[in-house]
């Protein structure tokens, strides 16, 4: 009986940990700011552009509606907080005709809510003409952008193999950490906080039960 209880508890802990390790199904583009080297790293890039963040927007077909996630991170190893901004320079001149046919929305995932930053034809700069504040990130912090691109079903054959280029500029402002900054550091990523807190609680309870059981077993000889 004791063994069964121990196995069940272990199973519960393992299951909880496995759930915690599940990852998003979307292939995200990543913007990493490193204060150590004072530069942005754009990944993964593509054969069209080494700084391409749009992993999901290749080989699209009329009628497609495709989501793209982009994660913006502060990967600095020392204690700085970084104010991050983004703005759009719009489509390259030779891409305007093609991209004007597509509709793009961009939202920032914030406290499990979507804050829309852009909702217009893909060639426009729209709500990102001026700098848009993404957040203040501490070392290790990140903020997520969720894009959705709609291709009209009636897009004609003249757009087969069409290629469109959009420039986004990112800005980082490094700030020293103030003594009155919140602790523990805010990462800017609030997703799954309750889940991880619950996971920690379940694991802790399981450990306590195991320890108590072992003590009891030892006492009983």
């Amino acid at each position: 009986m004791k063994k069964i209880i121990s196995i069940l508890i272990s199973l519960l802990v393992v299951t909880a940990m496995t759930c915690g390790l599940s990852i998003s199904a979307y292939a995200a583009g990543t913007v990493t700011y490193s204060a150590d080297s004072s530069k942005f790293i754009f990944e993964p890039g593509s054969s069209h552009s080494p700084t391409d963040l749009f992993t999901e927007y290749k080989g699209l077909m009329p009628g497609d509606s495709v989501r793209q996630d982009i994660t913006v991170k502060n990967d600095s190893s020392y204690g700085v907080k970084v104010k991050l901004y983004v703005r759009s320079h719009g489509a390259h001149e030779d891409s305007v005709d093609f991209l004007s046919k597509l509709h793009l929305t961009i939202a920032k995932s914030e406290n499990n809510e979507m804050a829309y930053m852009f909702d217009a034809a893909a060639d426009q700069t729209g709500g990102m003409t001026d700098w848009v504040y993404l957040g203040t990130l501490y070392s290790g912090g990140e903020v997520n952008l969720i894009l959705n691109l709609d291709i009209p079903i009636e897009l004609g054959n003249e757009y087969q193999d069409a290629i469109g280029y959009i420039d986004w500029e990112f800005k980082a402002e490094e700030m020293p950490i103030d003594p009155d900054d919140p602790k523990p550091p805010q990462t800017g990523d609030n997703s799954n906080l309750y889940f991880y807190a619950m996971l920690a609680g379940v694991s802790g309870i399981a450990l306590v039960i195991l320890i108590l059981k072992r003590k009891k077993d030892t006492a009983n000889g």
Partner: protein
Amino acid sequence: MKKKLLVCAFIAVCLSIVAYSTTAYFSYEDTATNVITMGNIKIELQELAIPDSGGDPIPFEDAMDVLPGMDVSKIVQVKNVGVQPSWIRVSVAKSILLADGIIGEVDLSLITYDLNTQYWIEQDGYFYYKDILNPGETTAPLFTKVTFASNMSNMYQQSKATIKINAQATQVVNNGSTVFEAVGWPKA
């Protein structure tokens, strides 16, 4: 005088604060060039023939000196050479050009082909391939031989028969669950 000093000191302090606040952080900017690309639909019409000596099909070449009652090997099929699954349809237009000086009304029904009705369905002047054609795949042949009727009269001596094949494709993605529901076919 003391007042002036005080004002100067105050300005200096203000400037120091301003200077401090402007040097309190560094800023960096960089640009990502993001790319959106469209896919494509690409097909290849294949016209093959079994040589008279037998063996594997070879590219079809015009058949010469055809006599009434003869079968001419002509295998018509379509290959998907793109990266997207496609719906396929084919039109077949027959014509006969009589020899110089010969006048008469041609009967196109004298030229027939062994239509593969298992995979191809005729509707609205086209033969629709009922299955999805995935990238790299080739359709079952629309037909494999053309037959010239044995009752073709002397009017057709030295005439020239033409069978014009036109293959079209449209995307499967977001475009109906059967070939007959699909839209977006190229204009003929």
